[in-house]
């Protein structure tokens, strides 16, 4: 058993989580779950930012993921408000039913 792991593993973990986020986004129909998948993808990206920051011994990556976090918070506030409105108007959370863009 090695005492430590290479940085690559962190990056691969980030990729796996990102892929899971994509899977959630593509396969799930519930709009809230889809939104959470997006948060998962953001987290995966944050992990790779911090990993690179470690590699470079530089704090800029942290700052960047800090901003990502801020944006995610703002996005969650607005996004959930939109979900509420959609639900109020259509009484559904299934993303396939909200397809007025199609016509």
């Amino acid at each position, binding site marked *: 058993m090695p005492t430590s792991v290479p940085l690559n593993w962190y990056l691969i973990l980030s990729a796996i989580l990102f892929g899971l986020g*994509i899977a959630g986004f*593509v*396969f799930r*129909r519930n709009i809230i779950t889809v939104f959470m998948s997006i948060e998962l993808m953001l987290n995966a990206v944050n992990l790779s930012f911090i990993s690179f920051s470690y590699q470079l011994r530089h704090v800029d990556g942290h700052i960047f993921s800090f901003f990502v976090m801020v944006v995610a918070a703002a996005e969650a506030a607005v996004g959930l408000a939109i979900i509420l409105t959609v639900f109020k108007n259509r009484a559904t959370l299934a*993303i*396939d039913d909200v*397809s007025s*863009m*199609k*016509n």
Partner: protein
Amino acid sequence: MQHLWLIPLLPLAGFLINGLIGKRLPNFPVSVIAVASVALSFGWVLKTLSALGPLETAHVEHYYTWFQSGTLNVGVDLAVDRLTAVMLLVVTGVGLLIHIYAIGYMAHEGGYYRFFSYMNLFMFFMLTLVLGANFLLMFVGWEGVGLCSYLLIGFYTLKKSAGDAAKKAFIVNRIGDFGFSLAMFLVVVNFGSLDFQKVFDAVRPMPVEQSAGLLTAIALLFFVGATGKSAQVPLYVWLPDAMEGPTPVSALIHAATMVTAGVYMTARASVIFERSPMAMDVVAVVGVVTAAMAATIGITQFDIKKVFAYSTVSQLGYMFIACGAGAFSAGIYHLVTHAFFKALLFLGAGSVIHALGGEQDLRHMGGLMKKIPITFGVLACAWLAISGVPGFSGFYSKDEILMAAHHSSPWIYWVGVVTAGMTAFYVSRAMFLCFFGSYRGHHHPHESPFVMWGPLGVLAVLSVIGGWCFNVPHYLAPMFPLAEGAHDETLVYISVAFGLGGIALAFLMYVVSPGIPDVIANALGPIYRLVYHKYLVDELYGAVIVSPLVNGSRALLWRFMDAGLIDGIVNGTATMSRTVGGVLRLFQSGSIRSYAAWVTVGCVVLLMVLGVMAGGVQ
């Protein structure tokens, strides 16, 4: 500087005003603008000519360089010499009278402003043609008058025959214009200039060509242009049809001015023609053939305007006989007197037609002498003038021409004399059918207003005195030396005898015993019908030239090129876009999840590319 540019630009201003705002104006201001612009132009011509004095040499004004290409330098230059002076007076003078006449004639027709703006535009181009100091400017006017002729023949836009006649005139003239262009190319290539002065100065030292050469080619090509514009064999067919236009147009364009442009051009290029006896012979022969042929057709026609149209063709033939015989000044002389009496004939015919409410068929006229006496009086002057009765204007000019013809080749003289007899006959026939005997129509005739017969009166006076009052050959003597040789009195008597004989014969056949013409027509049967149907020339052209062109265009250009090839390409493009779009629109499902899937696929592809590139780097 005499500001020659004012002469053509005044009618152009009239055209612009009437063309742009005439539609909103009542008739009166429109006619005032149109007539005033021509009157001012006429006045400016008089002022210029009096200021320029005897005009021994040409007065040239250079305004600016139109274009410069290599050594060729074409300027907008206007020039006045004695030949131009004569033409200017005829064009603006007769043009002014016809404009005044048209005020009355067109009063009840639609498109009043359109008519007068076209007429003003015509004056502009005609004056450009006459004043231009180089071949190209002349050609601009040449084409412009063709355009106006087209517009005015087809003035009654709702009549299909008028539109067809306009197209015919335009297309037939194209053939002539093509010859003109080729002649200009030859001039540019060989003399490096288009200025009259430079070209003629270069030609003068050249020897007379005994066999066909460069000058013959140039002269003949110019003459092709002249046959088109001046309605000579074989391109005369458009002029009789051109009578579809309003009568003032027939008088102004198709009798007095535009159709004489070919004669003017031939006289202008006389230096070239004189050095090619062969071309001169061609001109004379074409002239004499045209004169005789058109006169025979004129005898058989019943439409009063058609009779005068063939008469015009015939008289233009006379002018070319003069040119071909080397008596250019006689040709111009006849041009001037013809402008007077033929304009008068047409305007008088217009007055008759006006009086009869649009009737043009001679068979439905008759006995109008008492009903419209003024019209009869003025028409009689023109009648006697064209018949060559001594003392009237036509006598002098025709006499000059026949004398010159006899001087160069007697057979032309004899044909000319016979034609003169026929001319007298058919005009007399028209007059007798129209004014003598008993009235055969139904419409109640009424005399034309003063605004119409006023100009007619002026023209009548000119038709009578124009011959001895304006001695054109004498005036043009510095440019075209007077023919030497004694004035043979016998020849004059012969031609006068033929003219009076023609009148007498017509009097016998149409007044004394009106049954004779039918007897003769029946006796001559096929020949009469051939002449009555204008020697079937239109049918011949239709079969030989028009229908092969039409059929070829239909099969090759339309069916194959246009419908098959070009439409195929266009439709093919549309079909292809549609097919591709049909496939692409499947992607636009409207389902966000499938979009996300596609984005993922795109990412994968990008990563693959990135991997390949990274592998390549390492």
